[in-house]
């Protein structure tokens, strides 16, 4: 057998290395009590944002299509997950299992939305996906704002625009229009977030290093050539986009289950752009870059509270520094091993 180079192993090693090491360090900090409560409160959001960034990287970096509504899928997953956990509260008393089922439901719902958005738009060439996903994010936010879902002994009740149902004895509103969701039992834990990050990394890295991943990257690099060797452009664009939406939905469930109140406004355009910033600064198509950027840029604003007056200034300087680093010789040198042959 000829010398074969396998660049993939390195991605796995770095990605899992960073995540597992970070988990152990944080667990040690928790055990020894060396952790501030504000940082502790951010652990689950960090995990959710890592999953958001890695999944958006699949659309933006690997597929090469711009999506400006990733928070929309997060929102669908968040509220879908809340409805699922509330509805299943009696059926599945074991909380971690209920969270896992809720995540699967949130992911499924977001995936269906991905199909609805993707099927018409991904058949087109050009920047249409950016425009439509931008609108999608806004539409989801506005729909959730006028969505009323309640549950009583007779089952789930649902209405749009105004509350058109009366809950029976002992009934409870799950989503209450613009007020959003309140009184959710917090199911998300740092360990659950860590496991979701691991599962996301494993599945997405596996996907990238398979015939499916090659087909998606071929469509990105040259769609006409990809078609000429038998790859259906629409099919693989849709596949990458929907997988990306599913993980965003699961991240949404994880995120929502960390708070007792959640409103639709949390998943607005700014959140979509924030996640896009993680992806661009981490490097397009670079999975472990997304992990670092998402974690760092989520923690940073809190860390900078100590120097409150200069907070936004330092945040901006860091963004510029990361951009410079991405284009620097230093990065090339650090990653020089990437092209060494493996026998």
């Amino acid at each position: 057998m000829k010398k074969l180079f396998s660049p993939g192993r390195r991605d796995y090693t770095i990605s899992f290395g960073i995540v597992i090491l970070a988990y152990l360090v944080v667990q040690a900090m928790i055990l020894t009590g060396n952790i501030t409560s504000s940082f502790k409160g951010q652990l689950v959001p960090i995990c959710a944002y890592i999953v958001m960034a890695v999944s958006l990287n699949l659309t933006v970096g690997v597929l090469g299509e711009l999506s400006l509504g990733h928070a929309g899928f997060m929102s669908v997953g968040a509220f879908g997950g809340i409805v699922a956990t509330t509805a299943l509260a009696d059926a599945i008393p074991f909380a971690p299992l209920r969270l896992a089922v809720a995540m699967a439901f949130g992911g499924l719902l977001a995936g269906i939305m991905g199909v609805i958005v993707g099927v018409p738009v991904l058949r087109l060439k050009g920047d249409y996906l950016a425009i439509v996903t931008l609108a999608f994010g806004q539409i989801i936010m506005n729909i959730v704002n006028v969505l009323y879902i309640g549950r009583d002994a007779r089952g789930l009740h649902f209405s749009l625009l105004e509350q058109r149902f009366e809950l029976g004895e002992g009934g409870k509103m799950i989503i209450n229009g613009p007020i959003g969701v309140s009184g959710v039992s917090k199911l998300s834990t740092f360990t659950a977030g860590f496991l979701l990050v691991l599962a996301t990394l494993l599945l997405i890295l596996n996907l990238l290093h398979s015939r499916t991943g090659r087909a998606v990257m071929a469509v990105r690099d040259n769609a006409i050539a990809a078609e000429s060797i038998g790859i259906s452009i629409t099919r693989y664009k849709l596949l990458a986009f929907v997988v990306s939406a599913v993980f965003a939905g699961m991240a949404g469930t994880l995120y929502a289950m960390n708070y007792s109140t959640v409103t639709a406004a949390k998943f607005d355009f700014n959140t979509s752009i924030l996640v896009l910033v993680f992806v661009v600064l981490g490097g397009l198509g670079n999975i472990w870059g997304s992990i670092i950027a998402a974690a760092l840029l989520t923690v940073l604003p809190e860390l900078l509270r100590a120097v409150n007056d200069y907070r936004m200034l330092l945040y901006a300087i860091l963004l510029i520094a990361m951009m410079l680093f991405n284009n620097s010789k230093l990065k090339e040198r650090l990653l020089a091993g990437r092209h060494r042959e493996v026998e």
Partner: protein
Amino acid sequence: MAMLEVTQLGISFGGLRAVDALSMRIEKGGLVGLIGPNGAGKTTVFNMLTGVYRPTDGGIRLDGENLVGKTPHEICRLGVARTFQNIRLFSRMTVLDNVKTALHHETTYTLAESLLHLGGYRKKEREMDARALDILEVFGLAEKNHYTAANLPYGQQRKLEIARALATSPKLLLLDEPAAGMNPQETGELMETIELVRKKYGVTVLLIEHDMKLVAGICEYLYVLNFGRELAQGSPAEVLHNPEVVTAYLGE
């Protein structure tokens, strides 16, 4: 029955008649050239044969099967592969992955196996590696399998494109100006490679080329196109001495 039968093929872009009433027959195993001055419509013919453009009228049959109205990826799976005049590689992927991508339908496993790397994944990926390296070997690119495609020198990028097309196991291989931008020595090597490929893989070749030494050297039959219409056809010796063809290329 001929392998490729093109009958009265034509296409209009608005008021422009780019190709008109073109008929061609290519026998299995043949090596046929499609030549003509710039703008004669040669690449347009390729684009119709591969489904990039849908002809306005006329028919295309490969081994009796109709190709008109099919999408490019369907036509590829029916056995037509091509290269491009302006090289179109998957430039950010490795040389090996460029060829493995073309094996997409050759060795398959399911999406679940892709996501979980289960079952046949490892075995089938190894099979693909071996097949891709075999093909790269023919083009002298096996040693460079881990290079990023964009980092190959120009001549090797052209070769990689042919290797990628061959990996789809085509019956008919369309080469669009394979020798463009090559020096005489590289062109000579390319001619040998095309002959070798034809014997080794039993593939039928139709090529567009401006290098008359290459055309005269390897093509068995030529079609000449001018302003979208057939100007002449026949063996290279006949066609290249045809006064009309000489006029079309050089002017009065």
